[in-house]
């Protein structure tokens, strides 16, 4: 019983750790892609790439950004209103 409890606690810790690792894995994949592109094209300018951004309709946008007048809408609407 005790060993089962300890086992469960350890698993819970692992679950929490894995939940934290999800973001790291995302960042890791993003950074890896940038590194590979830098190897393939050493002179390329990647300063515009940001892991917090997303590509929508061919534009790099902030998926959490809000539309004017405080109305929350999809990130795509921001690009439409701005451009």
């Amino acid at each position: 019983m005790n060993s089962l409890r300890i086992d469960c606690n350890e698993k819970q810790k692992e679950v929490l750790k894995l939940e934290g690792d999800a973001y790291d894995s995302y960042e890791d994949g993003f950074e890896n892609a940038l590194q590979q592109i830098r190897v393939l094209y050493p002179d390329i300018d990647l300063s515009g790439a940001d892991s917090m951004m997303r590509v929508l309709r061919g534009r790099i946008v902030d998926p959490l950004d809000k539309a004017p007048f405080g109305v929350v809408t999809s990130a795509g609407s921001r690009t439409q209103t701005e451009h």
Partner: protein
Amino acid sequence: MYISGLTRVEDQNRVMHQSLVSVEETLKNTQKELTTSREEYSALEESYSKLESELNSLRIGCNEKDEEILKLEDAAFDCYEDGFENALQQICALHPDFDLSGADSSMRVLLESFCSILYSIGVILHCQVSTNLFPLWIGVVYLIFVIIFFADKMLHTFSIFKIYVIPGLRVNPNQPCLVRRKLTAWELRNPWRQFVTILSGQQLLSLRLSKLLRRSAPNWSRS
């Protein structure tokens, strides 16, 4: 005589009455013990069923956590792939003319510092053992210089080592090189382990090392 016989009968009667009273007391005590035992038994039974249900819930919880761990491990892969794909999309949006087909999420970039040190070790081993071009101490001094020079990069690099070379793509140790290998979920979570895996002699590293050894002498003066 009659009176004495009567007295004897009375005595016997008294004795029998006393024994009857004691038997009754014993019976009462036994009944009490039985009641107590029954109560204890039912209490034990209750606690046993509680323990059993707790054990079952623990087992179920453990199994659920196992499933959750597996899901999260898969999710780590998905997150990694998502990050990689997002970066490619952004680069594509920034530079539409670039061909990004050479990028592969199962590859990694071997950084310059590691290449240099690996190269240096290869040079030293090769030149000292087979050609005897220079004394060993020169090689050791050079290696120390390289390690000190790239120490800061190494510290950074150690945390992101996930390596393996695309055979023949990059052999110049001055350049970072792409490396190929499928990462396991466990390795994604333990970058240091990947480095250990490399050192423990994976096939592609030895392939790369042999290439470095073959071309060691001409590049020796590069530093």
